[in-house]
């Protein structure tokens, strides 16, 4: 079957979802009011609260939420065949992510542009806020560990991408200063930066000495390096330490100096990448070689693990943080909630869709596919298949495959690096806030909190491992990352359901995805913690067992809170701002 069908069916379902389901949600459930004074107008200050054109706001929202995660998850999940991953991405986006993203935006707009954390406090109570803080802490910890691994992995497998990625740093700093000092436009300098980066990528693809291949420097694959570790393991260690030092420096700088100019360049990369891949898909019309469902995938059941493997791309709690953090303060008209929130999640769905297509069309035969995806542990390497598969798609519009592979790796590393920067920053704020809450003054300072964040993330990525040795922690942590992301989405959907319930509206559109997510999370964590990571299941991975158990307890806690709140809520049709 041609992969174009997947794209077309995906487009049609997304279109129908936007045209009908989001209309139903907007008109009948949220009852969006074009005359409601949004926080952007009410508290207009030219800094945080700025009424913004809906196209502009959609673009900003989409580029803030899209990153490497909707690529990594689907690239692993095709292990069970293309159909389960495809269905979950498409239906999850339409019925869960769309409702979640537009719902958190709506909730925040109706509540002075406050964030989900503050709303949790107001709607449920102080305990919910602390629970929320701990889950975000867990999520960002996972993000740091997993994304450090993603970058190290890509640097090792695509050594040509190292130089272009590092060149981006001084270019971004220069753009940051250019805009700050001269209030110039970012458009031309950032396009120039992109040309320099991709120019370097072309050079590094052809000139081997320009490829920073740490494994080769250490004697090549298979050789034993220091302390009995293999060259690949040592390369992981070196890259992770370099990344953590980088992220320490980057996350303590003001955002306008490095993070935001990088983000700006990355937004070009995201849009350009999506265009090239979809264009390449329609030009090359590749055949799907992966099986519809993989009957040999017996070691890990797709139900429920699929639903925690693909978080971003189907539904992600992180989007609620963006919706309620910045987007809600800039919404010009409440009617725009549908356009910005719902279509923001559709954008992410499109990214996940092309990730699935790139992976399922890459292998020449089904046998090759099954050979690579022979067990769930090997599926962890799906990201490298995506890089190669995307390169094949890009070659359809005349880009040589080796250059395309380097550029795709550069794009993913750029996304992952900015995510790493923001999540370490976020972790620092949360540590400081928890420090204040529990009177631990020593961890509230910028450098103490950052040190704690960076050290704990480094430990997390280096400690767990299997027979592949150092650096395999990322494979193992991925489901935990998905789980904490789903838990966050679960809380946001719960808040939305409570709000709708108190207003006397139909809360099912929020409640059904919430119950679904909580069930899947609980079931998946139960399976993984008690049958795989527990000492009685023959595992010696204490760290994974403890982390999994913590996530499991959190999931139970949220479910119990949800039940008690949903039983006891009182209707109040005049509820405007939650007080």
């Amino acid at each position, binding site marked *: 079957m041609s992969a174009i069908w997947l794209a077309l069916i995906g487009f049609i379902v997304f279109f129908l979802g936007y045209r009908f389901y989001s209309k139903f949600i907007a008109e009948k459930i949220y009852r969006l009011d074009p005359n409601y004074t949004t926080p952007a107008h009410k508290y207009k200050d030219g800094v945080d609260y700025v009424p913004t054109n809906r196209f*502009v706001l959609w673009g*900003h929202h989409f580029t803030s939420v899209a990153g490497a995660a909707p690529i990594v998850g689907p690239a692993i999940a095709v292990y069970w065949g293309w159909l389960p991953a495809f269905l979950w991405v498409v239906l999850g986006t339409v019925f869960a992510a769309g409702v979640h993203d537009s719902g958190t935006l709506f909730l925040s707009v109706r509540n002075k542009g406050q964030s989900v954390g503050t709303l949790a406090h107001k709607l449920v109570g102080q305990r919910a806020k602390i629970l929320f803080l701990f889950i975000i802490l867990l999520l960002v910890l996972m993000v740091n560990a997993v994304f450090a691994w993603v970058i190290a992995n890509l640097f090792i497998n695509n050594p040509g991408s190292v130089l272009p990625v590092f060149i981006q740093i001084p270019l971004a700093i220069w753009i940051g200063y250019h*805009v*700050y000092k001269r209030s110039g436009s970012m458009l031309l300098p950032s396009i120039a930066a992109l040309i320099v980066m991709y120019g370097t990528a072309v050079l590094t693809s052809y000139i081997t000495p320009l490829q920073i291949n740490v494994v080769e420097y250490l004697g090549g694959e298979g050789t034993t390096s220091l302390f009995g570790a293999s060259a690949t393991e040592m390369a992981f260690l070196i890259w992770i330490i370099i990344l953590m030092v980088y992220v320490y420096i980057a996350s303590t700088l003001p955002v306008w100096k490095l993070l935001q100019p990088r983000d700006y360049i990355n937004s070009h990369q995201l849009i350009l990448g999506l265009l090239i891949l979809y264009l390449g898909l329609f030009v090359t019309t590749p055949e799907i070689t992966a099986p519809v469902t993989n009957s040999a995938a017996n070691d890990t059941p797709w139900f429920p693990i699929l639903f925690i493997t693909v978080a971003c791309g189907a539904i992600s709690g992180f989007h609620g943080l963006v919706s309620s953090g*910045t987007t809600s303060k800039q919404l010009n008209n409440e009617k725009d909630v549908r356009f910005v929130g719902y279509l923001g999640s559709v954008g992410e769905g499109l990214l996940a869709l092309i990730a699935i297509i790139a992976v399922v069309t890459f292998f020449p035969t089904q046998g090759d596919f099954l050979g690579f995806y022979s067990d769930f542990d090997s599926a962890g390497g799906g990201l490298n298949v995506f890089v190669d598969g995307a390169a094949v798609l890009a070659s359809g519009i005349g880009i040589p495959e080796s250059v395309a592979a380097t550029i795709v790796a550069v794009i993913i590393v750029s996304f992952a690096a900015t995510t790493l920067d923001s999540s370490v920053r976020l972790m620092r704020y949360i540590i400081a806030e928890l420090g204040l809450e529990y009177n631990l003054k020593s961890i509230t300072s910028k450098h103490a909190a950052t040190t704690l964040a960076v050290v704990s993330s480094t430990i997390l990525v280096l400690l767990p491992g299997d027979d592949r040795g150092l650096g395999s922690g990322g494979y193992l942590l991925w489901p935990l990352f998905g789980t904490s992301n789903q838990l966050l989405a679960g809380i946001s959907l719960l808040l939305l359901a409570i709000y709708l319930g108190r207003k006397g509206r139909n809360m099912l559109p929020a409640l059904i995805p919430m119950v679904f997510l909580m069930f899947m999370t609980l079931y998946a964590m139960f399976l993984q913690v008690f049958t795989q990571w527990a000492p009685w299941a023959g595992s010696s991975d204490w760290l994974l067992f403890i982390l999994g158990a913590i996530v499991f307890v959190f999931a139970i806690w949220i479910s119990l809170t949800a039940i008690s709140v949903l039983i006891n809520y009182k209707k109040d049709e005049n509820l405007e701002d939650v007080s």
Partner: protein
Amino acid sequence: MVDKKFSFKRMIELYDEMLSVPHRTEIARELRDEDDLFLLLVYSDMLGIPNPAFYYTLELYPYIVEKFHDWHLRMGMEKSPLDGIRCC
């Protein structure tokens, strides 16, 4: 033809705006922080911190007094700290 050119230009503008929303916010915040420090210096004598340039900063008073209310709110003072300025 003119319309086409305009629409392309408008598209580029929209695209540029789309990507620069967060930077606009951050740069505005950074500049406001600088402004806040400047206001602190200007108001310092009134707040009890001796300022040798008070004679000159007083001249700026008409230009900055309108910003005073927002400034003291941002500085974490819910009520006006100065008897002379009763903004709230």
